[in-house]
């Protein structure tokens, strides 16, 4: 029992929860390449408002910054914190690949081996995949990030 619980609440997760990175909205929401979204977990009411700022890099768009405001449980808070660490500064294509890897880990019902090279602190979420009710918590900010990034990209493309 408490082994399972400890697998869920790994120290890394609790650390990010207590000291979240990049929390607090930053930057000008109306500047070019910026998109902001608001996502809710309908079941529990957890919410995140997340802002993405893309910049043009040498080989295409780059995730210049991600910031957020959120209310939620340890898993959803820690996951937002880890997300920002992983994607800020990365080319959008690479960041999307990280997103995909994290998604696969979460939907793997505990059968997927996490790749530390790609996910860094994100590997701590491997235990979450065994708790179906918590997978949504871990994915809340990731889904918001994908949505915002897609919006910022399309906007950029159309402008």
């Amino acid at each position: 029992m408490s082994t399972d619980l400890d697998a869920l609440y790994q120290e890394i997760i609790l650390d990010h929860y207590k000291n979240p990175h990049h929390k607090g909205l930053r930057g000008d929401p109306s500047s070019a390449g910026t998109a902001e979204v608001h996502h809710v977990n309908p079941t529990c009411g957890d919410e995140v408002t997340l802002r993405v700022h893309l910049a043009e890099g040498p080989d295409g768009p780059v995730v210049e910054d991600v910031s957020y405001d959120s209310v939620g449980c340890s898993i959803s808070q820690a996951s937002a914190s880890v997300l920002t660490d992983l994607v800020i500064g990365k080319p959008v294509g690479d960041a999307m690949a990280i997103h995909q890897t994290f998604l696969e880990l979460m939907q793997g019902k505990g059968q997927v081996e996490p790749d530390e090279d790609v996910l860094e602190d994100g590997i701590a979420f491997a235990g979450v995949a065994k708790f179906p009710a918590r997978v949504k918590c871990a994915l809340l900010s990731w889904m918001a990030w994908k949505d915002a990034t897609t919006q910022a990209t399309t906007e950029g493309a159309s402008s």
Partner: protein
Amino acid sequence: MQGLLPDLDVIRKDFPILERTLAGGAPLVYLDSANTSQKPQVVIDTMVDHLERHNANIARAMHQLGAESTEAYEGARDKVAAFLNAPSRNEVVFTKNATEALNLLARTIELGPGDNVVITEMEHHSNIVSWQLACERSGAELRWFGLTDDGRLDLTDADRLVDEHTKVVAFTWVSNMLGTINPVADLAARARAVGAYSVVDASQAAPQLAVDVQEVGCDFLVFTGHKVCGPTGIGVLWGREELLNELPPFHGGGEMIETVTMARSTFARAPHRFEAGTPPIVEAIGLGCAVDYLAHIGLDAIHAHEQAITAYALEGLQSVPGLTVLGPLDATQRGGAISFELDGVHPHDIAQVLDSRGVAVRAGHHCAKPAHARFGVQSSTRMSSYLYTTPAEIDALVEALHHTRSYFKVDR
């Protein structure tokens, strides 16, 4: 007899009610499966196991029982999606029955004056009255395909009926009165050609034909749990995902929301958008088990069995003097429900004498009054078989019909 299910004896053992005897010790001869099917033990046991060991509310509950219950409920959605060959599990909405599924569409598809809805004269009341009410509310016009004398859709007027103002074409796949199998893919294509939604009522098809929504090419399809060996209290609305997400919400309540304030709310996407409140959890789980049971036996094998029994029944019925079958006489062109008239004896009285011998059939209008009116009859007697029906049961029916004639002294 060709086409019968090979393990019919074994299959019959799956259905505990078939062992029942009725008043006077008569064994049950259940020929009312188009009304509701009997339930295999595995469906009953699955429901009992859920209630005794896993019962909890879904989605909202985060504890172990809640996770088990949610997994079982959502697992049932996967099974139904597979049963229909649906491209996505999100396209399967659980409703109370087929009637609710049809009314959901009739309430949420936007209609207005100048629009029209096209149905057919052989529909079940659920696929008539729902649209009548929608047309009354909206000012749209209700039109319908008539029937030919041999009980098929009369498509001669089709190009005039289905026109550029048509918003919905709603039709049954298999008639519950006449047994007719309709050309659903053609009708769906006709609807698509004018930009109308096609709605297929598969309530009588799903029990006995392989249903593949992609092959039919329709927009929406409904069926009801209790006719496919599942429990009452559960039905299915299948719809193309993008169309479901375009429809406004149906009922407001728990689970269908995204967020709620006193002033306004936003809504979840399909399927949850249309599943307000605590859904029929144990019923969905029972239905999931039922469609798996049918798939395990094989819908093609079930269909062949139904056709063999239907051919045998059509032959037997025609041996009864004064008996007229309503609907197509070719077993390969029809489903397993056979309605008939018997000169000189009212359907109620037929059903009563049959019942005294344990033979259960339906007498009345079978919720298809317009189809009866089309053939100038008030009511009829209907026998309907299913995967557990034996030729001997058909013999018992035919014999009981001969007895009915002599009981009411029809020849004198």
